[in-house]
């Protein structure tokens, strides 16, 4: 079988970014926290591939360490929100009627809280930090996954083999676990990839506004925020974290598209 080009490219990019994030736990080209005022704001060269920042730290090392933060928060938020949303979605599809309306209403309410709004609210409650960021991003994932999994599960419930399973006396929970979940899994996995990309963008936005992880934990969004002052003097400080975000999100999107092409030959709807 020939793999879609987007799948190969997306998987490669994602693997590199995840690899860099994991590698940063044990090794970076330089210590991402080591200041060196003499070598501050240096343009990229052989010693510092991405240059140095206002206090002389190696930008490439901070980017690698930041990958751990960004990917970690994005993946955790997506996993938690995705699991909760999927659970809600399949429950709505299995129960129908009142439960379904309730879930959809709940979805509507959650959907009114994009990550930045949740973060502003939660920030008022418990201050900025990784937990605030993960919660704020995760909350918005719930309605997204609930909507997709409900729609997918409803289609499965209409199939003949579900009727057969019902005749055999299996209850809703068993049918959902044995037939519905395995069949909607491919769609959920596609969404996990794409939504992780969106979560990276959200995390970067929150960090940019100072609502993400606190210093000294490195983060791409905060790097961009700090780069604003040196926009004219050191454009590499703007370019490096932005490219890191864009490439990571692009990789995850391509991965998601590729997986969709692989699992759904009819080509699913965009979005």
């Amino acid at each position, binding site marked *: 079988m020939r793999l879609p080009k987007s799948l190969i490219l997306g998987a490669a990019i994602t693997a590199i970014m995840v690899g860099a994030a994991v590698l940063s736990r044990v090794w970076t080209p330089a210590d991402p926290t080591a200041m060196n005022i003499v070598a501050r704001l240096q343009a990229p060269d052989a010693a510092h591939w991405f240059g140095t920042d206002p206090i002389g730290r190696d930008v490439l090392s901070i980017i690698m360490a930041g990958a751990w933060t960004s990917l970690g928060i994005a993946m955790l938020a997506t996993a938690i929100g995705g699991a909760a949303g999927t659970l809600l979605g399949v429950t709505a599809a299995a129960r129908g009627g009142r439960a379904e309306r309730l879930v959809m209403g709940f979805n509507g309410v959650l959907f009114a809280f994009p990550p930045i709004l949740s973060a502003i609210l939660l920030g008022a409650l418990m201050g900025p930090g990784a937990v605030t960021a993960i919660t704020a991003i995760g909350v918005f994932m719930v309605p997204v996954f609930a909507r997709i999994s409900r729609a997918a599960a409803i289609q499965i419930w209409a199939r003949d083999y579900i009727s057969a399973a019902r005749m055999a006396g299996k209850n809703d929970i068993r049918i959902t676990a044995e037939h519905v979940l395995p069949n909607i899994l491919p769609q959920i996995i596609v969404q996990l990839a794409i939504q992780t990309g969106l979560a990276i963008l959200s995390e970067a936005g929150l960090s940019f506004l*100072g609502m993400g992880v606190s210093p000294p934990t490195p983060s791409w969004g905060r790097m961009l925020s700090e780069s604003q002052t040196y926009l004219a003097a050191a454009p590499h400080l703007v370019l490096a974290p932005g490219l890191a975000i864009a490439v990571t999100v692009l990789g995850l999107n391509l991965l998601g598209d590729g997986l969709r092409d692989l699992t759904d030959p009819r080509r699913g709807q965009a979005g």
Partner: protein
Amino acid sequence: MTPSPSRIRRLAGAALMLLVTSLVIFLLIEAAPGDPAEIMLGTSAQADTLAALRDQLGLDRPLMVRYLAWLGGVVTGNMGQSYTYGVPVAGLIAERMLVTLPLTLMATLLAVGVSVPLGVMAAARQGRAGDGLATVFAQMGIAVPNFWIGLLLILVFALKLGWFPVGGFPGWGDAGWGDAGWGAISALILPAVALAIPQAAVLTRVTRAAVLDVAAEDFIRTARAKGLSRHRALWRHTVPNALLPVVTMLGLQIPFLISGAVLVENVFSLPGIGTLAYQALSQRDLIVVQNVVLLFAAIVLAVNAGTDALYARLDPRLKARQ
């Protein structure tokens, strides 16, 4: 025409969701640490002055009473006084809206104006160079954070070329559409572009997919059999029918548009609602946070309800299915 039962039910559902949303916001803000009276008067205030202010603000009343009083205030336009600015919150929001509303409107118009023709063009040239370029634009635009685009635009068009201001907002002035008007608009152009690019990317992708879907429908063949050229059938029959998913996506994008506005206003130092919310949070002006978040959430809910209604209007078949 009397509203149909389904429409009434949907309206009631939207109202209920708004109510729940307001309660969630209220409770979260209530749970947040910080005594408004103390924030207003400072930590050195006398105990009896604080008590008097609390009494005046009605902070000693029961939770539910305060919630209902807040809701009543929102409806009548009296949202209370900002703790830090000392002016009515409603006035503050209205003033900041004069920046955020034009900004988001310009961005949306720009995004739709670029993405619909681009998506249609890509679909009409499926598999050819133009299609490839549009697809690359869509993939890139979705992946790039809008505040980063903002920074790059500042770098190139403000710092290097000097065509636009680096940031800030001169205000609309009293002159209306004189120099002040132009100054205000030119201050919004770069932020609007930054906000529009990711939106345009998403919409391009949806438009392209929708046009391809509709182009395969039987009625397009009917149109061609009437003697309509490919071009004419595309614009008269395919595109109008392909706009439905585009409108839906536009509605679904509102949360991202609002998030984007908060970020982009921050990058360009625009005194909009997003900046207001962000600053209010850092100054613990919670009454402003509470009202602004409710406003944004209400906009999302209203737009979604509106999109559903518009969808029903655009697609006559939906009315029949109800």
